[in-house]
C-alpha cells in the first residue's frame, strides 16, 4: 500500500483559536479512512484545508507527491481530490444528467475557439461527458430521474446526486463531508452500501468525516481520531474503538454536530 495523501504538521489558527495543531496523517491508495472526533475537534477544518477552501497557517498537504497546500479548490480537483458538501449541494435548476455532466468539468475542458464553434473536439468531449454521466446514473440506479430537475428531488436523492457530481470529476481520493447527515438509519445504510459499491467499482480512496458510528464501522478500514485539533488515535477500526483515550474523548458519547 502506498500513501497518496500526506498531511504533515498542519496548523490552522483563527485569531487566537487553534483549530488544527500540527496534524499529520496519511491516506493510502484504495483505502477508506474515517476522520472522527468530538465537536470542534477540527475535522471540518482539516477537510476545508485539504480541499482548498482554507489556506493553512502552516504545514503541508501533498497528494501523490505534489504539494497542494493552499491551492484553490478548482486546482486541487485536477489532482484527483474531490469533495462533497455536508448539506445537499446540487445545481438546483439543472437536470440530474446535466448536474453530473457539470461535475465532470475537468474532463470536458476544451479550447475557447473549439467551444465557441462547437468544434469536433468539443462535441466529442461533451458526448463523452454525457455517456459517463449516464454510466454514473446507472451505477446509482436512478435512470428514471435522469431528466428531472435536481432541485425537485427528495433529500436522499439529492445527497446521492451530490456524490455522483463529485464522482464525475474522476477523483482518486473522494472527500465525503458527513454523507449521512440528515438521513435516517435505513437511508444511511443504503448510502453506505452505495459508497461501498462505488469504491469497489471505481477503485478509489475515500476520506470521510462522519458521526453515524454504524456508517463508520461498516465503511472504514481505518480511523483517525481528532481532539482539540490534535490526532489522538490512528489505526484499524476495531483497535481504535478499544483505545481508552478515544472512548473517553468521543466514542460512546452521543453527539451529532461539528463546529
Amino acid at each position, binding site marked *: 500500500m502506498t500513501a497518496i495523501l500526506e498531511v504533515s504538521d498542519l496548523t490552522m489558527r483563527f485569531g487566537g483559536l487553534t483549530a488544527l495543531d500540527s496534524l499529520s496523517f496519511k491516506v493510502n491508495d484504495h483505502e477508506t479512512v474515517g476522520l472522527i472526533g468530538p465537536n470542534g475537534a477540527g475535522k471540518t477544518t482539516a477537510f476545508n484545508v485539504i*480541499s482548498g477552501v482554507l489556506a493553512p497557517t502552516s504545514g503541508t498537504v501533498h497528494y501523490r507527491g505534489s504539494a497542494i497546500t493552499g491551492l*484553490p*479548490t*478548482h*486546482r486541487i*480537483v*485536477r489532482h484527483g481530490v*474531490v*469533495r*462533497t*458538501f455536508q448539506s445537499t*449541494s*446540487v*445545481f*438546483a*435548476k*439543472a*437536470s440530474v444528467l*446535466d448536474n453530473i*455532466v*457539470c*461535475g*465532470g*468539468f*475537468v474532463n*470536458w*475542458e*476544451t479550447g*475557447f475557439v473549439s*467551444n*465557441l*464553434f*462547437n468544434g469536433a473536439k*468539443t462535441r466529442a468531449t*461533451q458526448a463523452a461527458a454525457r455517456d459517463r454521466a449516464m454510466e454514473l446514473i446507472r451505477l446509482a440506479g436512478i435512470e428514471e430521474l435522469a*431528466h*428531472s*430537475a435536481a*432541485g*425537485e428531488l427528495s433529500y436522499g436523492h439529492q445527497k446521492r446526486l451530490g456524490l455522483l*457530481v*463529485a464522482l*464525475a*470529476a474522476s477523483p482518486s481520493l473522494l472527500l465525503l463531508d458527513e454523507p449521512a447527515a440528515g438521513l435516517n438509519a435505513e437511508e444511511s445504510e443504503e448510502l453506505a452500501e452505495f459508497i461501498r459499491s462505488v469504491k469497489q467499482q471505481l477503485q478509489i480512496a475515500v476520506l470521510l468525516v462522519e458521526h453515524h458510528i454504524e456508517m463508520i464501522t461498516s465503511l472504514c478500514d481505518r480511523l483517525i481520531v481528532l481532539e482539540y485539533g490534535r490526532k489522538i488515535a490512528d489505526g484499524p477500526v476495531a483497535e481504535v474503538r478499544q483505545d481508552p483515550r478515544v472512548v473517553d474523548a468521543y466514542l460512546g458519547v452521543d453527539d451529532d454536530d461539528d463546529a
Partner: protein
Amino acid sequence: MSELQQTNPVPATAKWKIPQEFLTAKSATYCALFLPLAALPLLIDSSFVYHIAILVCLNAIITSGLGVIVRVDQLSLAHGAFAGIGAYASALAVIKLGVPFLLSLVLAALAAGVAAVLLGRLVLGLKGVYFVLATFAFNELFRMIMLLLPEISGGTNGLSNIPAAEIAGLEISSKPGFYIFIALALAATLLVVWMILRSPIGRAFDAISGNLPLAQASGIPPRRYQILAFTSGSVIAGVGGGIMAAYVGFISPESFTFWFSVNTIIMLIVGGRYSIMGPVLGALLLTPLPEVLRSTGQLQQIIYGVCLIAILRFMPGGVSGLIDRFAELMSGRK
C-alpha cells in the same frame, strides 16, 4: 443564490438544453415575432421609424452585453464606461487616424476588452458587493479621465465632428443603410452570445451562478469564467458604443454616466435576463417610449422604476420569460 433562481417562472428543466432542442418552439416563436418586425421599418420607410429602429438595435446590442455579465450573477455598473471606451476609441481612430469605420469598431472592441480584462482581474476576485462598488467607481473614473484629457476627449464639449459611417467606400449614414447595417450587427451579436451560452462556457457560467461552491468543487475556476463573462459583455458594449458614436455623430463624457448603465439594466430586466432575446425585447419595449413621449420624462422614469421593481417581484424572467412559457405551451411541453 439558488432561491433567486427557484422563483424563476421558467420551469426548472428549461435551462441547459442541447442545441437541437433549443432550435425548436422557442426560436420559432421569436422568429415569427422578430423577422416581420425587423422588416417593418423598410416597408414604412419613414425617417422617424428608421431612427427609432436604429436606436432599438443599438440598445439591444449594448443590453445583450450586460446580459452576458449578469449570467455569472454579477452586475456591472461600468457598462456605460465600456460603451464610452468603445465610442471614444472608434471615433478617435476615425477622426485622428482616418481608420475605416469597420476597423474602428474592431479597435473599439479591443479597447473595451483590454480595459475589461484589467478591471476584471483587479476586482472580480472580490465579493459581489465590492464588485458592484468597484464598477460604479470605475464608471466615475472613466468620466473623470475623459474630462481631465480635453486634448483627446474634447473635454466637456465632447467630440462632435465624427464622420458618417462608411463601409467599403459606401456611405451608410442614410437611415435605411444604417438600419440594415445595425440590424445585421445585432444579429451578429445575438449569434455570438448564443454561441457562448450554448457552449461549455455557458454551462460553466450557469454552474457558477447556480451554485458557486459546488462549481468550484467540480473544478470550474470561477475567476476565469467571471472575467470571461465580464470581458465578453464589455466588448459588446464597446462595439455598441462605437456604432453609437458613428450614428449620433457626437459623444461626450456625459453620454456614458451611471444612468447609461441604469437604463441598460432596466431594459435587461424588463426584457428578461435568462433569455438571449430578452435584451432585444427590453430594447424594443423601452426605447420608443422616450422618443414618442418626449414631454413626460420624469413620469416615465418613475414608471420605469415601478416596472423594474414589479418585474423583479412578479416575473423575474421578464417579458421573454412569458414568451418562453408561451412557446413551451405551444410545443406541448408543460
